[in-house]
């Protein structure tokens, strides 16, 4: 397995280089980052503009600019954004925020998807099966940003009728709040719950369908039948032979869905005022801040690549027929 991992890592590095370069080129061509500066009233002195131009290497051809950036990265320097603030200082805090959101949402979605997928498959054609399938369809037809808005609206109404703030919908936690360990925890939880549900619900719906299909495949298999013919009771057969085998394809599905979750997080953070990577990206795109954008991409692409690698390894561990050479 080791040669496989090494090979994949090397390929991943190339992928990262190519994608960051590609985005770099696109960014560089999509507008003038100095525009916001030059149109300010009153306009800053030319020396300031020139200094910024030099700092952003705007006088130099695009590929060279990219190498300046790359060189900086290898020294641990992610450059400065348009306003001169080092990107590194901003991005890690935001990274933590988004990781919290994405991780919790994925775990929730995964557990729900496995439960409903398996139960739907076992009780195929029942009322439960049809209704969860229908609900699933509706959920994947709802845009993430609207779902976020909906939950926010409902939460406000619940808060109003209950007379207290059960759900918080702005930010990650109440600023300047200190209620001790449990107080802080419940505060964070009340802030976490709505964005998590938003992100989780939509991933859950599509994963649940895959899990159901995978489980159905397994339920009709010959080895399930043989296990029963051996005298193993149904429940045990279901878990030991059914679930164990049906979970394997889910690793691939989740790995593929990871990218979609990141995209969903971008929108969710906007609605709930979470100062995470999503908000950062939008701001970077708006101001055509190349360093911010590239830093974002670096982390996001790395996460995707690492995730896929873990998923592939996990698949090989779970399925002995796949041995990575």
């Amino acid at each position, binding site marked *: 397995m080791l040669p496989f991992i090494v090979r994949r890592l090397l390929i991943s590095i190339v992928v990262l280089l190519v994608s960051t370069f590609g985005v770099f080129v696109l960014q560089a061509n999509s507008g003038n980052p100095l525009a916001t500066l030059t149109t300010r009233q009153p306009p800053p002195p030319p020396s300031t503009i020139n200094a910024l131009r030099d700092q952003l290497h705007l006088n130099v051809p695009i590929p060279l600019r990219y190498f300046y950036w790359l060189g900086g990265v290898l020294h641990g320097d992610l450059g400065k954004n348009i306003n001169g603030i080092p990107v590194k200082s901003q991005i890690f805090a935001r990274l933590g925020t988004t990781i919290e959101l994405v991780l919790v949402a994925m775990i929730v979605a995964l557990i729900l998807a496995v439960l409903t997928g398996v139960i739907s498959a076992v009780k195929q054609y029942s009322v439960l099966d049809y209704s969860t399938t229908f609900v699933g369809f509706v959920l994947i*037809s709802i845009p993430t940003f609207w779902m976020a808005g909906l939950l926010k609206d409902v939460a406000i109404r619940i808060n109003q009728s209950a007379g207290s703030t059960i759900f918080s919908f702005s930010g990650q936690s109440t600023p300047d709040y200190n209620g001790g360990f449990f107080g802080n925890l419940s505060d964070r939880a009340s802030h976490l719950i709505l964005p998590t549900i938003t992100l989780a619900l939509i991933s859950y719906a599509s994963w649940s369908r895959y899990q159901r299909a995978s489980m159905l495949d397994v339920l009709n298999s010959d080895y399930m039948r043989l296990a029963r013919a051996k005298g193993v009771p149904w429940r045990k057969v279901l878990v030991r032979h059914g679930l164990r085998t049906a979970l394997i394809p889910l690793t691939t599905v989740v790995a593929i869905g990871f990218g979609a979750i990141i995209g969903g997080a971008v929108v969710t953070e906007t609605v709930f005022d979470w100062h995470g990577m999503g908000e950062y990206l939008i701001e970077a795109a708006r101001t055509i801040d190349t360093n911010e954008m590239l830093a974002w991409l670096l982390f996001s692409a790395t996460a995707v690549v690492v995730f896929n690698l873990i998923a592939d390894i996990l698949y090989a561990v779970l399925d002995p027929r796949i041995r990575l050479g």
Partner: protein
Amino acid sequence: MTTVPTTPQDVQAGAEREFTVAARSQWQMVARRFFAHKLAMVSLVVFILVVAAAFIIPLFMKHGYQYQGEDLSVGPSSKHLFGTDSIGHDVFAEVLRGIQTSVKVSLLAMIVGEVIGIIIGAVAGFYRGWADSVLMRAVDVVLTVPVLVLVLVLSRLTGGNWWSMALIIGGVTAAPTSRLVRSVFLSLREREYVEAARALGATDNRIMWRHLLPNSLGPIIVDATLAVAGAILTESALSFIGFGIQPPDVSLGTLINDGVNASQTRPWLFYFPGLAIIIVVLTVNFIGDGLRDALDPTQQRVRA
């Protein structure tokens, strides 16, 4: 003596006693299965009605979606079916316009995405070798960036009109489509009829376009419907965060953006555009599910 049915014709006649079904062509069977899927049928009807309404009704409306009337921030009424916003726009007209945008963008995006995806996937899956490696590595690179992000970055390069958005979305979604087409071609090229065609002297091109492509239509059609649904969601998300359709034109995403913070006081601004998206996307998804059932009859449905 005997009236013995021993000739082949007699045997055939006897066997037909039990079979009262007539032979059907392949597409007839597909159609028959699709129509049996009630939800898909209902969705098809609803989808056609909604789309038709979106394009036809505005022709008969006195004022278009850009007209700013006097009624400001009024709730749903007989004059303004979905109410108005703070500048006097009629929300109903805006929603209809938004549906038009969604439909135009998603259909064009689907066509662009499918065509590019099929070409890339077919070449990669059929020829394999270094063409496959190069193409799939490129696809991998594209796939490491989330769809929304890629579209976001690309949208800065173009204007805010609907067809450039469609081109971008289509180009990006060509990546997962090419993956799908490639795997279908990979499995099909091993089939015996490919060998048979080669033995008869068919060229690569002929095999690809006359044999493999028609047989991969099933998964491709299903992928196309999913692409439509996805494109609608992507376009509206992009418009929601401000990088998509630009004012004065209107998209369901921009409408929701306007309404999201007013959902408490003026819910009609938020809920009507949202419901519009959901209905359109949901019907497309059900149609896709019906098509999937119709094109892949390997699942046996036993009455409960």
